[in-house]
């Protein structure tokens, strides 16, 4: 029932951040195909930042990645805010709206971070019901991201079973954050390749890539504050070749922002992997 959007060549993007907005917009150093923002950071914003954002919109297609939907929360959905998101998606001509498979609000209080949903059967039903509600309101498909987590909470099933159950019962897409898969496989001691094999990859509409921080021998925190490491590039390469089609990929860098040149190098690296995975199949005669 939902129309799949046309991607064209919008394939390698960057999270647009205030930290580097000015230099990004006033130079030709960092050249993504698209940008991504969190609607929470831009809805209702005027003045200087609105101008900067408008400049970015004039130049780049926009992907929108929300923070506060809290799809797995026991609290009711914030429909008033969701309507603002809908307007924002419309006004900016956003190509995709994705969110996190987590909860960020509980007991009527926002926590502004992504907490892990218990992997339970009732949570599966709860999430699918809410995905339906959100998509009906927005009149578009959303993509849900598998988040990094540092502890399971009262699980009745594995993470993979939980995600598959949700996708089986919800008409949404999957945002595959390859770094999150790597982080989770390390933290919860499973094989990330087998995990990817177990996902319905035909549902993937968007990919995230990022760096992380190992804080102890047995824990990685998903900081988005470092460069992507080689094992995550390898996992991306694997996911790309298994996908057998082109899916937009985003570089997330939220903290510890390096020189833009370094971000561009990461984008180039992602583009090379994408081409190697896709070109031999799709453009063999070109």
């Amino acid at each position: 029932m939902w129309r799949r959007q046309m991607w064209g060549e919008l394939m390698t993007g960057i999270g647009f951040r205030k930290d580097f907005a000015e230099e990004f917009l006033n130079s030709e150093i960092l050249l993504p195909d698209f940008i991504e923002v969190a609607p929470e950071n831009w809805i209702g914003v005027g003045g200087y930042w609105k101008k900067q954002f408008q400049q970015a919109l004039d130049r780049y297609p926009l992907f929108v990645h929300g923070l506060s939907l809290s799809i797995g929360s026991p609290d009711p959905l914030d429909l008033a805010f969701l309507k603002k998101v809908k307007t924002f998606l419309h006004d900016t001509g956003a190509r995709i709206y994705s969110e996190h498979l987590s909860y960020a609000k509980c007991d009527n209080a926002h926590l502004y971070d992504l907490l892990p949903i218990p992997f339970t059967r009732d949570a599966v039903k709860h999430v699918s019901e809410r995905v339906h509600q959100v998509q009906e309101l927005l009149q578009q498909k959303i993509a849900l991201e598998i988040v990094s987590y540092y502890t399971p909470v009262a699980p009745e099933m594995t993470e993979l079973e939980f995600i598959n159950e949700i996708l089986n019962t919800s008409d949404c897409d999957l945002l595959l954050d390859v770094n999150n898969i790597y982080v989770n496989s390390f933290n919860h001691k499973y094989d990330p390749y087998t995990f990817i094999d177990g996902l319905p990859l035909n549902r993937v509409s968007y990919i995230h890539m990022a760096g992380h921080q190992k804080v102890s021998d047995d824990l990685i925190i998903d900081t988005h504050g470092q460069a992507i490491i080689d094992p995550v590039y390898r996992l991306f390469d694997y996911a790309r070749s298994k996908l057998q089609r082109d899916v937009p990929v985003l570089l997330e860098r939220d903290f510890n922002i390096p020189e833009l040149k370094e971000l561009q190098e990461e984008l180039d690296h992602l583009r090379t992997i994408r081409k190697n995975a896709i070109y031999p199949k799709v453009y063999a005669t070109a």
Partner: protein
Amino acid sequence: MQLLETTRSHQSNLATYCRTGEYTSIPGVNEKHVHHYRRLVYNVIDDTLRSAFPLTVNLLKSKEWNDTVQRFFSEHPCQSPQVWTMPKEFYTYLDETQPKLLKKYPFLLELIWFEWLEVELYMMPDKESEFDGKGELETDLLVINPEHILQSFTYPVHLKNAKFITVTDKGNYFLVMHRLPESGKVEFTDLSPFLVRMLELLSEQPSTSDDLTSRTAADFSMVPDQELTDQVQVFIARMKEKKLIL
């Protein structure tokens, strides 16, 4: 609602732990790692408040700041889905709960409000002015920049380093804060009661300088003399330069 009470209570226990630091055992949770959630969540709150209220952070002893933030976050359910507007709730919380800290620093609430107004004015949606002032200063209609806030304080939180404000500074302070049209920067200007009234009248409708002067003077039961007219002219010229008056 499909969630069972057990799932809901596990979620609530984790969220409560993040807000208060008080952990109630949750089945399946890795107790060695769960503290990272508390740390990460708390850091978002603390960082957001610190960047909204740098003068307040600078004034308070670090224990005072930390205790206040901690109490705010554990007692107050943050309502805004947009974290950058959450600091306004910090102000409201302090105003409503009146913690002892406000006795020690009687100007603290005003300082926090002043800092919040700077954020709010910097970030708020654009307001279009319906009018545009052009031509001769004396004859043309003056228009106030719609992106302004008139404010009064009982302590000079906008004028003086908060560390040196004492009860002897108590008085009536007026200011106007406005956003510069091009750069979006926020500026504030200290005002006399006369000028406050004048800007209030100007925000009601565009006026000529003469008309504005005489209407303001009338509110103070004064008849404008040359000295007052000259002072107003100087103020208006300065405010045109600062783009408070367009």
